């Protein structure tokens, strides 16, 4: 949950804002509307920069503090943009006892970034996740929607190579 304010300049478009306002309109008045709105907002922008949080706060007539509080509480919400390829290594117990920690270390070493970060060219971002439920394939990692299972550390370079075009 190491969220910080993003250093990447905000580049939201008018279309995105229009879409967001539609989402707010759809949920406004519903009990507990804030989280569904934020989830859909993250779907629109890919992340939740402070600019987007401000729009949500203004439209829902709640304080920015409340929106920011929720954004930083849940690990699903990201204040930083994600890479073109999002790599998630499962560090659930089943994967961990089968060596996913070593796979995670190898990725940090190869990509020269820490978990939660994005490579400077915006290509890869890396994160650890807790159990995607594919324990039968442990250890597992995902790159966007592709799942790689029964991994060993030496598989890492080959997997990365597939996305290096």
């Amino acid at each position, binding site marked *: 949950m190491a969220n910080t304010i993003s250093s990447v300049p905000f580049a939201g478009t008018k279309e995105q804002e229009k879409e967001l306002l539609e989402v707010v309109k759809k949920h406004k008045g519903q*009990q507990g509307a804030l*989280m569904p709105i934020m989830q859909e907002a993250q779907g629109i922008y890919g992340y939740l920069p402070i600019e987007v949080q401000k729009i949500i706060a203004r439209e829902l007539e709640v304080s920015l503090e409340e929106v920011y509080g*929720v954004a930083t509480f*849940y690990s699903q919400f990201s204040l930083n943009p994600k890479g073109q390829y999002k790599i998630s290594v499962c560090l659930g*117990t089943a994967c961990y*006892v089968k060596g996913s920690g070593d796979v995670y270390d190898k990725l940090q070493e190869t990509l020269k970034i820490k978990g939660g970060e994005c490579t400077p060219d915006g290509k890869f971002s890396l994160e650890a*996740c*807790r159990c995607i*439920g594919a324990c*039968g394939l442990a250890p597992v990692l995902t790159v966007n929607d592709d799942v790689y299972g029964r991994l060993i550390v030496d598989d890492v370079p080959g997997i990365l190579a597939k996305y290096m075009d």
Partner: protein
Amino acid sequence: MYRSHVLVCGGTGCTSSGSERIVSALEKEIKASNLEEEVKVIKTGCFGLCALGPIMIIYPEGAFYSMVKVEDIPEIVSEHLVKGRIVTRLLYQETVKDDTIKSLNHTQFYAKQKRVALRNCGVIDPENINEYIGMDGYMALGKVLSEMTPEDVVKCVTDSGLRGRGGGGFPTGRKWSFAAAQPKGQKYVCCNADEGDPGAFMDRSVLEGDPHVVIEAMAIAGYAIGANQGYIYVRAEYPIAVKRLQIAINQARENGLLGKNILGSDFDFDLELRLGAGAFVCGEETALMTSIEGKRGEPRPRPPFPAVKGLFGKPTVLNNVETYANIPQIILKGADWFAAMGTEKSKGTKVFALGGKIHNTGLVEVPMGTTLREIIEEIGGGIPNGKKFKAAQTGGPSGGCIPAEHLDIPIDYDNLIAIGSMMGSGGLIVMDEDTCMVDIAKFFLEFTVDESCGKCTPCRIGTKRLYEILDKITKGKATMEDLDKMEELCYHIKANSLCGLGQTAPNPVLSTLHYFRDEYIAHIVDKKCPAGVCKALLSYVIDENKCKGCTLCAKVCPAGAIEGSVKVAHKIDTKKCLKCGACIEKCRFGAIMKK
């Protein structure tokens, strides 16, 4: 009418190993062979034997194909579906006996299982309400609405002895009776589908394989307590489950099984999905409800209990997915049927997600009272690579590690607590001699530090300090006093934390300390990690017999720690060695080892 049905597992495990591609290949081949009118392909929920995925069963023969590849499909279609010859070579070999196939129920993995909560998983198409109805689906709701009073329903659930499957084990019927006793007015029914224990996936499998059972059970709960609105709080990380739940809710509405005047009665009930956003603490009931309200998911002190003051301040019943999955059958078959299974105080069955160092990873459902040894050695097929069993971890970050000496204890809620672990939601991770118990305790504490919501001090700061001591131990920098301090801290955190997360967070430490104290001492006193896991405690050594004296390692060593001349075995000065591993990567003879 179709003459053959091909069931392909569409659960997350098999989807991850490519079952979607299998389905498309099948449909293509079947079309090419003009069998569309005769053979039906159905994507089901989880069969349980995830280790052998993707899994496919062809009926009426019941042929169980495992680890199916796209390349196998043309042969399976042309041989099995066209010519009627089972491709024995591709079957799960345990089902093949003298050229005939035996029923799955007689294989080692399934023989001891009893499927109650999972009964429809891997059997029906979860996206088709008619298949659920065909398996007596919504019969229980019909029975409740036409023949039973709300009091009858509560009594039936109470008499069955069903206890909460989310981990706490609170009697479900009693929970319902508290909420039912509240004055009439707005009440809610919630479902906890925020399966947070890393390594547990039974709730996900029920939602993916049999979503209607949860909907039906929640409607029954609504009738019993007098609620007309329900919420299912499900992890956003389970996209397949979310999708199938939404489809199921829509189908139930279209069929008049949700909404106004259900089945012609005067009972109204509707459901809404809410997605979690990745916070383990939201598995705690008060935190979950706060999260549905759209706030930071922090727990609050109890009482008042949710049955009195829950979601949006109204009386609320909250149960776990697996608990709900038992309800319709309890109503249909009666409390006595359910109470006849299990042990004296834990009735029915329990689903376990079997993972880690075990042959048959997957989902198993067994009667309460089955021993760990039966689950691990018989159903699970034992430990791979001839390694020795060290411990089984149950209850995830709230539970503990159970050593070999307790393998024969019948599993139920109370027995597990007595040996320092807990049932939890049913994650069961097997560990072998290569697993370091200190490292595992540290792994869980890292998890709780990360997931502590920060509201109360014992949990927020206590778990962090606990983690730091464990970190010191794994680095060989701790003293025996640290061990005492750690133990004392554990009891303080347990006694003073606000919610279940903090109260149980020290369990992984306490249980490993209790059963594997010698491993802790080896780290502290001998500065050794017996399992060879903790990197800081390993030293690099060169096997003199394997070393050819090529000098590569000495050249690559950044610390100048390797000495030796050409064609003479080299040596590592462990005092200078940084343990960077560069030499191991360079060595072409596999002569360098970590010990």
